[in-house]
């Protein structure tokens, strides 16, 4: 074991509806979508028009700043619609699958060099899984990162268990690791949860530095792991990749055939039978949640309740997401709710009773539980933010657009998800992740 990290600050949020460890098949989606908005920092350029037919692995759009970085169709079918938002920004490219699947052919013989690996990942659409810090953006293939970090677990509420999810994919995972490790001259860090036994897919992985981290959420966030193992200094570049994506890359390079199928967890208090599902990247949300959730006013989230994206009924699974969470909306005003005991509500503050019930699973809704205010309470963010960074000072530097301050206060090391717990627990209901994302974008623009 190279590094054994222990963090104390943070909090595990226990919610009802954890996925049972059973894998079943979701129905074949009647529609797929590829969303440029899933890739931070990407300016998409279309390769196809509405009505074109594509094979699985055919490019749909590419990165304007680097035309070799392609984003490809997960299925063969017809480009049904290109959904645009304000200023004609591309939001979604919807694809209706054919009954029989055709695959684009990729030559996977040349994987001995970084260039070879980059070329094949960029052409096949798998490059999108690589993310870059600082700024939490899509990885820039012209760079060589000082290290690559992979977290072998997710500590977010209701997150899938990667030991279960990847069980039996040892060969594919290793093949993926071997390819990815070509991309850096430094180490590939694989971090498992301390004080628990990880699946052999992780314990028997070779060619990587194996670390452990112990402590509450956000211990599973790769950003926290980087901070404690090999922090990002000015000028450093680190890449990160999701563990399941490593196995998907492994499957691809062993055959040369794109296979964007993945396993996700369907969880949350409003899911009738929370469990694991076989589905595909970009699958329609209908294929995942239809007939699976309780009646009522629900919110469907692609991702976890802290950093996921709200999707409408006709929405799609996010490119990076291995979790779909369904929780109730909370649109009912609450009579004197600010002073009532509220035993069903969760709070990090001891002004509520939830701290006396540490093992209780809560059924939380989407109510704001209050209104936006200026910063008043102090010390609240620090308790759930396990980095040697002053979160409120960093946020204030962002609010005043003081890029120099942001830089010295540690903007290089953080991603919005790392500060999600601060946002959850904030008395003043600050939009911490939005502010941080704006700060990251501004810093990237000004500092490069």
């Amino acid at each position, binding site marked *: 074991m190279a590094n054994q990290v222990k963090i104390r600050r943070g909090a595990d949020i226990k919610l009802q509806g954890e996925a049972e460890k059973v894998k079943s098949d979701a129905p074949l989606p009647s529609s797929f979508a590829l969303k440029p908005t899933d890739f931070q920092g990407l300016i998409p350029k279309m390769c196809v028009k509405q009505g074109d037919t594509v094979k699985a692995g055919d490019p749909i759009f590419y990165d304007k700043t680097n035309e070799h970085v392609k984003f490809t169709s997960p299925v063969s079918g017809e480009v049904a619609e290109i959904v645009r938002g304000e200023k004609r920004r591309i939001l979604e490219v919807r694809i209706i699958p054919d009954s029989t699947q055709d695959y684009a052919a990729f030559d996977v013989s040349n994987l001995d060099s970084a260039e070879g690996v980059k070329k094949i990942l960029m052409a096949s659409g798998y490059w999108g899984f690589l993310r870059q810090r600082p700024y939490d953006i899509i990885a820039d293939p012209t760079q060589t990162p000082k290290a690559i970090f992979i977290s072998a677990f997710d500590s977010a509420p209701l997150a899938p268990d990667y030991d279960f999810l990847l069980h039996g994919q040892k060969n594919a995972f290793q093949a993926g690791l071997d390819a990815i490790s070509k991309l850096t001259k430094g180490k590939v860090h694989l971090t498992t949860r301390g004080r628990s036994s990880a699946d052999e897919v992780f314990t028997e992985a070779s060619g990587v530095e194996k670390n452990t981290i112990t402590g509450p959420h956000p211990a599973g966030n790769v950003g926290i792991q980087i901070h404690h193992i090999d922090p990002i200094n000015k000028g450093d570049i680190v890449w990160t990749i999701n563990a399941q994506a490593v196995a998907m890359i492994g499957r691809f390079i062993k055959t040369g055939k794109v296979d964007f199928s993945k396993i996700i967890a369907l969880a949350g208090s409003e899911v009738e039978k929370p469990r694991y599902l076989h589905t595909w990247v970009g699958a329609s949300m209908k294929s995942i949640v239809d007939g699976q959730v309780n009646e009522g006013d629900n919110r469907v989230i692609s991702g976890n309740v802290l950093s996921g994206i709200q999707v409408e009924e006709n929405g799609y699974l996010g490119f990076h997401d291995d979790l779909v969470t369904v929780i109730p909306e909370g649109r009912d005003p609450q009579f004197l709710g600010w002073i009532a005991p509220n035993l069903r509500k969760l709070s990090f503050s*001891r002004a509520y009773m939830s701290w006396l019930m540490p093992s209780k699973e809560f059924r939380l809704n989407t109510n*704001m539980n209050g209104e936006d205010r200026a910063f008043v309470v102090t010390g609240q963010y620090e308790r759930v933010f396990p980095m040697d960074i002053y979160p409120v000072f960093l946020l204030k530097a962002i609010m005043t657009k003081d890029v120099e301050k942001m830089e010295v206060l*540690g903007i290089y090391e953080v991603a919005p998800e790392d500060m999600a717990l601060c946002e959850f627990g904030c*008395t003043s209901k600050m939009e911490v992740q939005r502010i941080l994302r704006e700060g990251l974008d501004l810093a990237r623009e000004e500092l490069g």
Partner: protein
Amino acid sequence: MKLLQNLFDSVRPHFEKGGKLENYYRVLEGFETLVFVPGHVTHRGTHIKDAIDLKRTMFFVVIALVPSLLFGMWNTGHQHFLATGEFGGLAEGFIDKLLFGAMLVLPLVIVSYTVGLAIEFAIAAKNNHPVNEGFLVSGMLIPLVLPADVPLWMVAVATAFAVIIGKEVFGGTGMNILNPALTARAFLFFAYPTKMSGNIVWVPTGDKTPVDGFTGETLLSQAYNAPDGSNFGEVAYDMAGYQYGSMADTMWASFWGWVPGSIGETSTFAILIGAVLLLWTGIASWRVMLSFFAGGLGMSILFNLWGANPFMDVYPLQQLFMGGFMFGLVFMATDPVSATQTTTGKWIYGFFGGFLSIMIRVFNPAYPEGVMVAILFMNVMAPLIDHYVVQANINRRLKRAKVATA
């Protein structure tokens, strides 16, 4: 509940854009959100939110102040009847004392809240921002740090000064540099010193003749004026002229709080009940409280060792139980907006706050108290302390980068 909801629903159109009362939308909102936590849902960022909000946070502080308020009412009556020679015993005339005190104290509370909230609502309506809950606490703190006999118009003026100059000019709750309640007190103190210090303000005697030997001196003033070579604890006396006779009895009197002083400050016991609630809920910083106490205790011990006069010789715990030290420690120094924000900063801020409180109290040639000015001074220093703490973090990061590239 449904009825109330319908009521709000029926009047809301008048306050919305285009309605006759659209300028007062924020006033309606202020009242409605007090009755109902709105059914607003999250949109981006975290989909779930912690149950805590500013209303609950602030209201818990108000609850924590209730023991001091109730005790202050009783004690106002107690001091009065002690001075006039009626109901001399502690247990006698409980109802009379409470009623007498309530008649003096409640108007102060009402004036403070009315004036403060009126200004807050007016500014919120004018600037179109939500009404902030900060004044819920300030409105209760202001009367509790004043003598019971202070004229109501002064409370009104001081409250207005504190809200406008102390807070709103900086941008409202969360942006102020000084604690608003202490700003109100400081304003009165320097503008109308004869109503805020000396011997005649603490015990309201009305038009009755006080008993022989009555001076109206607080314990602090007695300690300050104690003859050289005497032991303050033994010579201290109450408002009926009765000498406590021993250090322990004097200390217990100031611990329980049946001594003259500002309304809320006298009873360490009542303040500690509030402190327990604030620490239990985690709303006030235990670091500030602990370090403030340590600072005050440390200075008192130093003075004990020095021992140049009877005031310095006051037993350390006794020193802390007297005057406004405990009230300042629990309710003023812990104000998160005017205190330091960093954890390290809180230790420094609290310690020097307590240290200076006792130092100023003993050295101050004008009047024998220093908690107010000490905390206000530390309020001003807080951003500087934080600056250095954050700078240390920045330097640590820069050093790490140098090591990495070396």
